[in-house]
């Protein structure tokens, strides 16, 4: 298992870093927030990302992508995490495109993936229904009527929901809530009659929405994957997304840590640099150690996604390890980011606050640390 980047990946990392620092700095997110931007992301920057090929990073060439693997996508996400870039990378690329690529029929892929790569289509996953992540806790129903399905239910925490062109809706076609069997996925146009989208303004200033489905009628051809048997494919897609999100979190964590260390080396109190205080040094050294572990699990998990021989169970374990670990460490480092900066860390004028806000959202999305520890224990049969 390669835990270090190869030459191509290193080049991509350098160029992605350069792009994010130059073209998509943190000040963009602040501007989007302050101007109450309608879209919630900067479409000119998104256009540049598309030109760099970021939307097609993990998509096969046959569907208009660049076949650079999830490792490549992970690198881009990590760098965009450093500058807290708000873009459809998570919703449309990491989740939407991955779902279509991993689950879709050939015609669905032919029809949709090139559009995603070109930036003509934004796709959002409509999954969770209550206050915490539960991919099998689905009450939204899809009832079959001849060649049609009728969808009823309500979804929350739908990333980029208010700007999405299509939703991938996770529904129940049979069974009880919490059953893995009976889950089916549908591709639904956002402008279909009966859909109500409410944008929810989140603490991290990234896009999210609540989406209601009332008597929404879709053809059977809208099924993504198998009827009733959608869960295991969905869970695999979620694992890919958990790993990708962990990569984005890794970038944010490293950025906070770099800012902490820089501050410890410049802020003076009691006539000395505060970085000389052991009370702060040991906490910094502990964070450093935890971050080194984070880098390793993210590299290993991304590597497994691009390894054709890796088994799904191994990927599932690595996904839960990555999401659990990164969630814990982002929590730790973002808290210390505020604390170690002292009073200035509490001010809106200073950037560190954006990271603690993003941390909490990223921690919860696709399962928090406790969710993934529980899942890991189950995967390990205890």
């Amino acid at each position, binding site marked *: 298992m390669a835990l*270090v980047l190869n030459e191509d990946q290193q080049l991509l990392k350098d160029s992605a870093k350069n792009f994010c620092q130059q073209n998509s700095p943190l000040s963009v997110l602040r501007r989007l927030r302050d101007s109450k931007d309608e879209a919630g992301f900067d479409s000119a920057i998104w256009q540049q990302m598309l030109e760099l090929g970021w939307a097609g990073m993990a998509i096969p060439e046959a569907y208009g992508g660049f076949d650079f693997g999830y490792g490549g996508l992970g690198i881009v996400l990590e760098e965009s995490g450093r500058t807290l870039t708000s873009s459809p990378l998570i919703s449309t690329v990491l989740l939407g495109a991955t779902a279509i690529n991993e689950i879709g029929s050939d015609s669905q892929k032919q029809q949709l993936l090139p559009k995603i790569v070109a930036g003509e289509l934004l796709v959002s996953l409509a999954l969770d229904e209550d206050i915490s992540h539960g991919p099998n806790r689905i009450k939204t129903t899809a009832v079959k009527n001849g060649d049609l399905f009728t969808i009823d239910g309500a979804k929350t925490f739908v990333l980029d929901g208010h700007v999405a062109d299509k939703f991938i809706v996770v529904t129940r076609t049979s069974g009880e809530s919490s059953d893995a069997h009976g889950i089916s996925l549908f591709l639904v146009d956002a402008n279909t009659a009966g859909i109500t989208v409410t944008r929810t303004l989140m603490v991290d200033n990234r896009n999210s929405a609540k989406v209601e489905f009332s008597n929404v009628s879709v053809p059977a051809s809208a099924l993504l994957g198998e009827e009733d048997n959608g869960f295991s494919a969905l869970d695999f897609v979620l694992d890919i997304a958990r790993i990708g999100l962990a990569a984005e979190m890794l970038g944010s964590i490293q950025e906070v840590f770099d800012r902490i260390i820089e501050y*410890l*080396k410049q802020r003076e109190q009691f006539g000395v640099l505060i970085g000389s205080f052991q009370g702060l040094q*040991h906490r910094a050294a502990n964070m450093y150690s935890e971050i080194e*572990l984070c*880098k390793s*699990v993210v590299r290993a998990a991304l590597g497994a996604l691009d390894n054709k021989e890796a088994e799904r169970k191994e990927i599932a374990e690595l996904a839960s390890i990555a999401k659990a670990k990164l969630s814990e460490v982002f929590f730790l480092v973002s808290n210390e980011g505020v604390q170690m900066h002292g009073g200035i860390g509490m001010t809106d004028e200073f950037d560190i606050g954006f990271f603690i806000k993003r941390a909490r959202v990223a921690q919860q999305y696709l399962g928090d640390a406790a969710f993934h520890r529980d899942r890991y224990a189950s995967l390990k049969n205890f």
Partner: protein
Amino acid sequence: MNMQLQALDDFRTSTREWLENNCPPSMQTSMVQEEIVWGGRNPHFENPESKIWLERMAEKGWTCPTWPTEYGGGGLNKEEAIVLNEELRRINARPALTSFGISMLGPVLLEYGSHEQRLEHLPKIVRGEIRWCQGYSEPGSGSDLASLKTKAELQGDEYLINGSKVWTSYADKADWIFCLVRTDFEVPKHAGISFILFDMASAGISTKPIQLISGASPFCETFFDDVKVPAGNLVGRLNDGWTIAKRLLQHERTMISSFGLASGQSDRGGTTSTVSSLEGAAMHYRGDTDKLSDPVLRDEIAQFRIDSTAFALTSQRSVEESKQDQGPNATSSMLKNYGCELNKRRYEIMMKALGSQSLGWEGEGFAEDELLVTREWLRSKANSIEGGTSEVQLNVIAKRVLGLPDILSMSKDREK
């Protein structure tokens, strides 16, 4: 590149074949404490196959795979050594030899020793003929190691050594010692230390085992009373021993950090045979069959396993990242610290898993495995003290890796 890969593949094939033909069956089972092979002048082989295994591995130089062949080593490059290690792991092979000569002294002799010193000592380390101990800590010099006072005075062509060491691992069983001594009392403490080797059979040396809270006595007090050592046994330059001392500590930390990998093959707390996995033990003692019934313990074990997997991946990554022959660096402090804290955590959770069956000291009512958990739990508390305390490791990370200012030197600057 392809040719290199092909050569590596061939090496794997021939190694696998050799191991199949040469690794005795009982050496392909998990190590048990009593059968660890330390070598030495009077070697002890609890299991006769250990002796065969050591001889065969030493013959290939594979007890020290990357050391040059002229000093008895295997002469393998880093990639080959990784392959050898993978193949050994594949068949669950035990280490043929465990010694401080391999993990600590050898690497610094290769870096700082003279050709003659290497020729004299390295082949014996490879073959397990001499067992080494480490003369570092002193009663008044623990974390502040550089304040050590054991004195070496040059008299003619010999050093006369006087003083005492403490926490000398297995001093009572060792043949030779690598020792830090003060050769200049007039200069700042780091600048007057030298690194010297001598025979523990020399006149004037006595050792006294120290009983630990676990009941075991792996450490000794060691006393030097007018011990005569040939001047040529000094390694590196006179008064430049601190450089070597620090380098050796990095190797020691790398070694200790491996205990966090829960390999079960170490002397500083490993895995007991039947209560080997935390979740297995926890479920066994609760009569659980498919799911651990205590949700809090289950969460704690999951967290531990996630951290230990992440740690194992990090150790692996640090090997991949380190350039050939570059050896460990300041990240060894991170690995040492994290590995030790993990190992301690492991035993604390193991005690929760076993409940009151983890609290026995000896005698009836407890299985041997259970008593071993009690003892190993106590022994594990030393992990974050030996080889530099966790606090010292955190200082090293702060200073050397993160580049944070040193308050000690800042306060000294202010005195000037």
